[in-house]
Each structure stands twice: as C-alpha cells, then as structure tokens.
C-alpha cells in the first residue's frame, strides 16, 4: 500500500486525470501548489519593478493505491504529464501505514479500493 504523489504542470492536470481514468485508478485528491524544480524563470515587469518569478504553479496529485496499482499509477502520471521540457514535475512514492474509509470504517486495502467499480 503506497501513497503516490505526483507534482505536474497545471495545464497537464486534465491529461493526467484522463490517463489515470484509463488506467482504472480511481480516487485522487488534487491541490494547487507552487514550486520550483529548476525550470526557466519567468521575468515579469510591473511599471518600474522587474522581477524574476521563481515559483511556478503546479498541481499536486495524491493517490493512495494497493501495491499492484503502484506501477500503473506511475505510468499514467508520466504519460499524462510529460511534455519533455524542464518543469514537467516529479513523482514520489511513499509507504503508507494505515488507511481508513471514514464512511464504513474499512481499513487498508479495502479502504483504498474504490467502491462501485
């Protein structure tokens, strides 16, 4: 049981959702984050003030999956998010101790297996 965290370009978020759907990975959380991973800085000018914008908008996917689903999830994230340019993002896979579905109290594998599929 792993938590897969994918940080991707906001404009690729929809492609990632599509490829996750095709990989039959259900149950994701996403949030808007800002970060810097070495991509080109943008230069912006507001009247006399010129700034380099180091932080770029990203979308962070959090997907809790059972072990057999880890690789398909990673593949789907890569497929949806890759453009080949610097700034495509990262995927982190971290171990997960416990998961509880609040509605039923189911734990672990049962909790991260979506219902109704």
């Amino acid at each position, binding site marked *: 049981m792993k938590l897969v965290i994918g940080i991707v370009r906001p404009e690729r978020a929809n492609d990632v959702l599509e490829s996750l759907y095709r990989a039959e990975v259900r149950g994701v959380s996403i949030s808007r984050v800002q970060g*810097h991973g*070495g*991509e080109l800085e943008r*230069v*912006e000018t*507001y009247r006399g003030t010129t*700034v380099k*914008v*180091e*932080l770029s908008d990203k979308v962070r996917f959090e997907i809790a999956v059972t072990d057999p689903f880890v690789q398909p999830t990673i593949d789907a994230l890569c497929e949806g998010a890759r453009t080949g340019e610097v700034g495509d993002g990262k995927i982190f896979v971290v171990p997960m101790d416990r998961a509880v579905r609040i509605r039923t109290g189911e734990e672990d594998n049962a909790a991260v297996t979506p219902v109704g599929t």
Partner: protein
Amino acid sequence: MGAPMLAQVAQVDTGDTAWMLAATALVLMMTIALGLFYAGLVRAKNALNTFMMSVSAIAIAGVMWALIGYSLAFDGTGDLVGGLNYAGLHDVTFAPRDGTTIPHLVFFAFQATFCIITVALISGAVVERMRFGPWMVFAALWSVLVYSVLAHWGFGGGWLQEGGTLDFAGGIAVEMASGFSALAAAIVVGARKDYGRIGLLPHNSVLVLLGGGLLWFGWFGFNGGSGFGTGDASVLAFANTLLCPAATLFTWMMLDLIRDRKVTAVGAATAIIAGCVLITPAGGFISPAWSLVLGVLGAIPVYFVIVYRPRTRVDETLDVLAAHGTAGLLGILFIGFVAQQSWNGVSDGWFYGNISQLGDQALAALATPLYAFGMTFVLLKLVGAVMPLRGPDHDESLGMDSIYHGEEAYPSGEGAILVTPEAGEEAPVPVAQP
C-alpha cells in the same frame, strides 16, 4: 428635423453638444467595459491578454480613424466609400457637421468611439490563442477596410443609406460587421487546442456581470447619442435602450429556467448585451411598446445560437456572432416590420403599410454579413501569410498573459525576486537541464 428653413446656415446647439460630449465619453467607456466582460469570460491565465485586446483597439482604431478611417466613412456620398478630404482631420473643425447641430470635431470623436468598440468586439472570437502582434496588425487593417466602408454604407451616405435602409446606431457597421467578422476570424485562426476536449470556463463571472452592466450604461450614450442631439429620435432611442434589454433579460431568465431550472449570471450578462444590440439599429425608429416585443422575440434565436454554437467545431470563443451578428441582424430586420412614422418621422414599416422598407432592411442584412465575413477572411489570411497568427501549443498552455505581456492578472508575489539595475541584466537560464 422640423427646423425652420432659415436655419440652413446651421448653428451649433449648446444643449445638443453638451449631450454629445457626454455620450462620446460613455461610448469610449464601453470598450473598457467590454474588456472587463471578455476578461471575466476567459481563463485566469489569459485575462490580461483578453482585456488588452480591447484596450489596444482604442490605440489602433483611434489613430487609424483620425488618419483615414473617418474620411473614408463620412466624407461625401460616394456609393461604396467616402473621399479623402477629412484624412488627418483636415477640415474637421468647430463648424457644425452637415445635418447636425454639433461641432464637426464632436461628431468625429463620437464616431471614433464606435469604430474602436467594433474592433474590440471581434477580439472575442480569437482570445486565448491569437498572438498579440498579428492582432494589432489585423485591427489596424480591419478598422479601415471593413469598419469605415460599412459605416459609409450604413450612415455615411453610402448605397444602403441612400437606398433607404434604416440603421439608427450601427446594426450594420458595428453589430453585423463585428459578428460576422468574428465568425470568419474564428475559422481562420482556428480553435483553441483544448477546445471540445475539456471545459474551458469563465474564470470570474462577477467581472462578466460588471462588464455587461457597464456596457448597458454606456449604451445609453451609444444609442441615445445616435440622434446627434437631444431631439425626439434621441429621446426615443434612450428610452428604448432601457426597455428592450430589460425585456431580453427577462426572457433570457425564463429560457434559462425552462432549460435548466436555474437562472445563470453569465447568461444574464449575455442577455443585457444581446438586448442592447437588438435595439441598436432600431432605437430611434420603433415605438417603446414594439421595443419590448423586440426584446422578447429577439432573445429567443440569440439564446439558441449561443446554446448550439459550442456543439460545433467553430471555436468562436465569446459568441460575438450570436450576441452581435445575430441580434444585430434581427434588429435591422425588425425595423422593416414595425417602424412607425408617427414615432420616427422618417418611414413606416410593413405593419404600417410600407412593405418596401422591409426589402431595404433585408438588403442590408444580406450585404453586410457577406462583406464583413469575406473581407475579414481574406485580411486574416493575408496577415497570416506574413506572420503566424498563433504561437506554439506550449504558449497556449502557459497562458497569453505571461507570454505576450510579461504580467499576470493575479500574481501571487511569492518567489518573485527583484531584478535591480545594479545587479545587471542576466539572461534567464535554466538552473537544471533535463
């Protein structure tokens, strides 16, 4: 109208002039209101670019109008196009403009604001993907080759006006011209890369309503000023500019309720604009009661064009064709049915015994879309042959604001490092390579 014969040596009327000065300012504000309306309708990453397309119309069309556009539209009574005597504002002075009681300069400025907003309107068809440079080139060419010509046809003494077509405030040159040009522009520039694949939603519906409301406010100058004074025609158009959009707004809310059981705010803003467009050509020619009817009847086809268009492959992004082209055409035709000489002092429509008026109106409703669509199509193809109309897909992903303006509508300010002149300008380089 009805002035004594000895007033052949026309005098400037102070009351008329005072109103026209205010009306001119009101119409200029409409372009900014349009920018707000359009900016609210696009995604946040394109909000500034969308707004700037309208703002740039003031710069480009304003200057082109003074240099040559005004002259082509309003000098003489050539069939297709005016002369060049007024180019560069030659002979445009304090003396009254022929047929009005306001200084020629005021008449020029009032008409300039019309040219400006018409150019800005077309941008609605190409937002979120067209490059800014080609847009400005296109805007300059269009303002002269399409707007000035159609303005001449419709109210500068050209063949439509001389032939008896009635157009009070720009159903021809402003509304149908922008609407059908927008269709051509959307076809030539092509759809946004994500069009039809994911939902591309308005990012701020409050801006949309604010822009729509301010457009209505400005439209009292637009229609109310198109009588060039404070006479009956202006008063009638002013009142109709309240009544017709109100009726459209009401009808639109009912249609929304029937379709989805919810009254939408973006729909309401759209309805206000559609209603104002409907009454634009007809404002000074039809009775207040008929203008209410026009508001109701006109709302229905416009509503269904707006519902249907996104199901097509034509990414006419902000529905200029529906709100301006369709509504303008309906307004022009409606005059042919219900114009009343007892109200307008000019001509009756079919319902009052003059069916030929409908023919004159139909002629304009046929010729204007053909000219506007055809010319815009050719112009954009020409501009596109010289400079690409669109950037790479990557630019579209990042957003127009960052690419073409180096600004964002909603910068977070986090991670922004001051670049000081002392530190020297170093070209940005990637910190890491892939």
